[in-house]
């Protein structure tokens, strides 16, 4: 028998501070799949907000310590597509030419967004859920257009016993979060969100699923404010049924 897979969890700042339940679900689910999960100490944030706002020297300094923290990891799992994109797509460029360039490239190659890890690394797509709601999937921009991933989360939802998946019109359109964009142009950000939520409500879904804590913060924020009956959840929250879950 081959050794059980080992992953290091990159919890990300938003999930750490605001949505720890997402991390907890991911850990329990991976554990049940026989994966050993560690949480390397000293994690903060991947530095994406700094990078996107143009503070590249600062983002590089953050990247450097993240690369060091995850240096020994076999694989790194990230709950948000945008943070995974930062590590995979931008770290190598930020640290190019330095002493940690090779380590950054290696980390990029070993880092997985959560749904990708399940489907593409572990080859697992069949799960059960304890929800019987209609669910719709929102494509996070960085996961879809940055990491070119639209299939893994959909495969997981399609094969999810108990849930009814409906199409979300404009599923590939931005939710309006965009990090600091959401507070620089709050009215525009909210108008984009309103369009997204109108589409969610029109789809008949009672639950909108995303693989990015940024989109979730934005969509939850808007749904809460309009006292909507629709909820927004991370994919891991549907896959990890309280008892059992893994088929």
């Amino acid at each position, binding site marked *: 028998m081959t050794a059980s897979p080992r992953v290091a969890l990159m919890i990300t700042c938003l999930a750490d501070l*605001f949505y720890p339940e997402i991390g907890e679900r991911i850990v329990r689910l991976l554990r049940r799949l026989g994966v050993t999960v560690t949480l390397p100490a000293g994690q903060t944030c991947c530095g994406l907000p700094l990078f996107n706002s143009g503070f590249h020297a*600062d983002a590089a300094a953050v990247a450097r310590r993240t690369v060091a923290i995850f240096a020994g990891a076999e694989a790194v799992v990230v709950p948000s597509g945008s943070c995974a994109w930062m590590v995979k797509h931008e770290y190598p460029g930020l640290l190019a030419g330095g002493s940690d360039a090779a380590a950054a490239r290696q980390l990029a190659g070993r880092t997985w967004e959560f749904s990708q890890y399940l489907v593409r690394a572990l080859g697992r797509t069949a799960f059960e859920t304890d929800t019987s709601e209609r669910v719709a999937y929102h494509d996070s921009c960085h996961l879809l257009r940055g990491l070119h991933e639209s299939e893994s989360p959909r495969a997981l939802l399609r094969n999810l016993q108990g849930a009814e998946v409906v199409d979300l019109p404009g599923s590939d359109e931005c939710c309006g979060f965009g990090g600091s*964009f959401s507070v620089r142009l*709050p009215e525009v950000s909210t108008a984009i*969100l309103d369009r997204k939520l109108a589409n969610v409500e029109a789809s008949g879904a009672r639950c909108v699923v995303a693989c990015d804590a940024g989109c979730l913060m934005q969509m939850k924020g808007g749904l809460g*404010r309009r006292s909507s009956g629709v909820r927004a959840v991370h994919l891991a929250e549907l896959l990890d049924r309280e008892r059992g879950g893994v088929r």
Partner: protein
Amino acid sequence: MSEPLITTPLRERAQQALGDRFLHEALDIATTKFIDLRREAFGDFPQGEGLRDRARAIKEATLQQLDRHLERLIDNVERLGGHVHFATTADEARDVILDIARRTGARMAVKSKSMATEEIHLNDALAAAGVTPVETDLGEYIIQLAHERPSHIIAPAIHKTKGQVAELFARELKREVAADPEVLTRIARAELREKFLQADLGITGANFAVADTGTVVLVTNEGNGRMVTSLPRVHVAVMGVEKVVPSMTDLMVFLSVLAKSATGQKLSVYTTLVQGPRRAHELEGPDEFHLVLLDNGRIAQIGGALREALYCLRCGACLNVCPVYRQIGGHAYGYTYPGPIGILLTAMLNGTRSVKELAHASSLCGACADACPVRIDIPKMLIELRKEVDEAKLAPWPERVVFKAFARLLRLPALYRLGGPLGRLLQRPFVRGGRIRALPLFFGHWTRTRDLPPVAARTFQERWTALEREIR
């Protein structure tokens, strides 16, 4: 001279646009239609992806040797009897055109749609010199009547509903008409026929110019481009230097992706190829042909951070898919070129200072780069512009202080971990029923329209030891 800096804050401009019900209706209908048409056009065209790659490669290679291709273009235009003028700035370009108008005694100029002439603010200069400019593209005609500027690169009047156009025609042309596009178009057509015959000068842009043959290429749908280039005595074409393509074969690659990206058409209704003035044996065409090659900040970017923006074909696809553009329309951007590509072009033409706010008018969702026929990485360059804004210290100082403090925090995990307890302490007065509905100061930018989650009772890292023990 570059365009004057806009002083009203972007957020205010955007809010004003968001409050415009007609704008919202018009934009929503038009951009949704453009998006669907583009998707269908490429859906039926499996070779499209490969052609986009080729188009991009041709642009890359052409810019590498722009001087050589421009020389060849100039030689060929002159060989055909045309005149070529090189304008380093918008001022120079205007002067060249006004000189031609003066020398030929022109009193009226008919114009085919051209963003390059918008960029140099030609119409005002012509009017001031006693030459009446008449826009003959329907959209341009509408906004000229309304004394406005284009709000979209290919659909200049996209911000107007048909009802608004009918009202405008009633007011400006003293014609009571129904809000029926066909009726409105017929009226404009009748008005414009006269002008085509009266005009001395025909002014166009150029979608492409073929270096090998000296051909200026116009892609239009209304046939007005053909009238403008064949009826008046003098034809002046104005084009950015980056529009040169080496050969007819290259041209075909661009034509195969341009209309599909712009309007979802296989080809536009008219593709007009102009080669110099009328020749001896020809019945139609101008006596004089002038090509104005416009630099206006472009050449400096061949080796600059905005290089890729020079690949732009001006199809407008990135505007249609941009969530920000779809909400605020083109005028809120404030300069000639709106939308994601417009921010880059504004920086190119007017300098980094002009985009210190606009560089942030994007959620960086990447839809623009995906839709671009030549795959311009617009988000990457927007981030690059943000960096330039930061480095030139153009951003407000509180913003820089906040980001610098944030950067420090992320490098000190002990301090970062205090975020949990500190956040819980500070948020205490504001949490109601597990959510935060209102916060003071800057944080209100979020909470005015959205709930904010409170910092968790125990952060994930605070839970970890217990969780690890449990799952072991």
